[in-house]
């Protein structure tokens, strides 16, 4: 039983599914928050898939999402700022989710990978995720 793939499946059904629902309905603020959460979960899913398929080259996908995901959210914050400001999003789930989810995924993966350049890449991805998550959720709330 491949636990990494099972975790990825759980994140996809339980995480990306509701994010898709949130991105498709509601006010602009809620949609952007859902998109932000989706990019965070996507990065974690890619890390789990890389370990589950035993293909460390897939970690590059997670690396790119860790930087481009927050960039996408900031695009929406900048250009939909007025619409978000009318109806600010209420839920404040993203910062705790990223502060819990990122270490919870990166640390077991680091243990499974062992020391070396690959672990350095994982740690970098974790740091980028946390920084991106905190900054974008603050930016959306303040839009």
């Amino acid at each position, binding site marked *: 039983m491949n636990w990494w*793939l099972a975790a990825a*499946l759980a994140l996809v059904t339980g995480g990306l599914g509701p994010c898709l629902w949130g991105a498709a309905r509601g006010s602009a603020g809620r949609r952007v928050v859902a998109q932000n959460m989706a990019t965070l979960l996507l990065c974690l899913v890619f890390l789990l898939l890389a370990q589950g398929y035993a293909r460390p080259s897939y970690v590059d996908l997670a690396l790119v999402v860790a930087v481009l995901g927050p960039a996408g959210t900031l*695009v929406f914050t900048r250009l939909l700022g007025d619409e978000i400001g009318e109806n600010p999003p209420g839920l404040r789930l993203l910062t705790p989710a990223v502060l819990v989810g990122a270490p919870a995924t990166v640390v077991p993966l680091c243990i499974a990978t062992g020391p070396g350049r690959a672990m350095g890449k994982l740690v970098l991805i974790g740091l980028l995720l946390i920084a991106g998550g905190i900054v974008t959720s603050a930016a959306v709330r303040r839009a």
Partner: protein
Amino acid sequence: MHDALIVVVLLLVAAAATGAVLQRDPARQAVVLSALGLTLAVLFTVLQAPDVGLAQLAVGSAVTPLMILLTVRKVRRKGRRE
């Protein structure tokens, strides 16, 4: 497990695409299109095509929403003035 992942992600892609089509306002459609791009990237990775997934991610996460929203802003600005 492999098959379950493929089926779930295929269903998510179908749902996201349908949601994008049913969305009428272009500015909000940009958000749904961004989500569709993310699900497509997962689909390509699950089908063992990471190069295509990376290309989808690169284009669909920041560049495409930026172009759509800038166009919407330009069109609305012109419309508001006339």
